[in-house]
């Protein structure tokens, strides 16, 4: 099996999961750097080039809110799940659990 194919499939598999993880983690307010660290500590590595554009996309879709605030003498952009994002997250989690249960039976 060619490694680039595996990489492509792996990325496809990860793409949807990342959205779910980011939404779930932003139940608590984070700025980009701490969000990335937090996800990494939980076992989900995500590079900046993926995370920041994803945050902007989710915000433009109304699933996140953000604000610039000063912390440690630097301006940082803090993200948090919006009420709409909360509803979407609930539905996605339900979907995820259903899928996971089915996969557990399959594999």
């Amino acid at each position, binding site marked *: 099996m060619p490694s680039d194919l595996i990489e492509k499939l792996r990325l496809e598999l990860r793409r949807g999961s990342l959205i779910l993880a980011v939404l779930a983690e932003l139940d608590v307010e984070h700025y*980009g*750097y701490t969000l990335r660290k937090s996800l990494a500590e939980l076992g989900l590595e995500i*590079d*900046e*080039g993926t995370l*920041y554009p994803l945050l*902007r996309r989710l915000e433009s879709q109304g699933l996140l809110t953000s604000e*610039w605030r000063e912390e440690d003498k630097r*301006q940082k*952009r803090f993200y948090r799940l919006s009420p709409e994002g909360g509803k979407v997250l609930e539905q996605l989690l339900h979907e995820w659990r259903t899928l996971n249960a089915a996969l557990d039976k399959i594999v």
Partner: protein
Amino acid sequence: MAGLIDQYLLQLKTYLPAKQREDIAAELGDSILSSVGERERELGRKLADDELVALLKGFGHPLHVAGRYLPKQYLIGPGVFPLYWYTLQAVVIVVAVIAAILGAIALLTDARPVQSFTQLLWDMFGVGLSAAAVVTLVFAVVDYHGFRLRLFEDYDPRKLDGGMLSLRAAPLSPIPRGDTIFEIATLAILFAWWIGWIDFVNMTGVGVAVRFSAAIEPFFWPVLALCVIDIVRLGVDLVYAHRTLPRTILRLFINTAWLVLFVLLFRADGLIEPVAGSLLDPARFDPVTMMERVFRVALFGLGIVTAVLIATDLVRIARR
């Protein structure tokens, strides 16, 4: 150190959309500084230039990073791309088949065959390119404006077999018997006309007698032979109404032969002549010229239809 980071962010900003430029650069700048700060805490010292360079490399090239913030752009979106690609292939194949046949005829019949052939290939390349551009433009407009394609929305699952759009479908797609009967009837009329059972004389409908001239003679046996072969082939299709590879290839060859004949007939002069003593005053009405024109228009139409059938068969064969 700050110089390197500023330079990186400046580069990044040049590739970002103006509205988001400062915002994105500020956020990413903070992320870079946070990473630097953490690394320096781990090491207990300031980062060396090489280490900072390695860290910035980890963020990716500014052009690449900026690209991730831009909306995905494409001319033909995934919603219509398969149909676009299919149409494009069909157009290119039709043009290629016409070019090949016209080229072969040019080589066989022209006084300066190589020059004519080269010119023809160049012309057909232009035609192919223009056709592809038009197809692309049409699909780009359809995609951009989000036109709903009735083809996809109103389709009947029971009718997915047969037809141009199902060429990718099952290898043994059915051949509608109605089509086959129509083709047999058409060929039978052509056959009867060709061998004289139906008289060509007086077909102008105004009592003026015209007929094929001697110039038609070289075409007599080839047309007759093709009629017979094609009717036999269609007879087989009528009984076994599913496409098979050998019969598809046979149809391809037969249609190619038809197309060659149509083109040669189209290029021939003086195929129709008046029956002696029956011609009206040519100043008022010239039945010979009129019938020649009708004949050529019919040949042109037949040529196009045949080229499309050849292209269809080529795609079918290629898909196997």
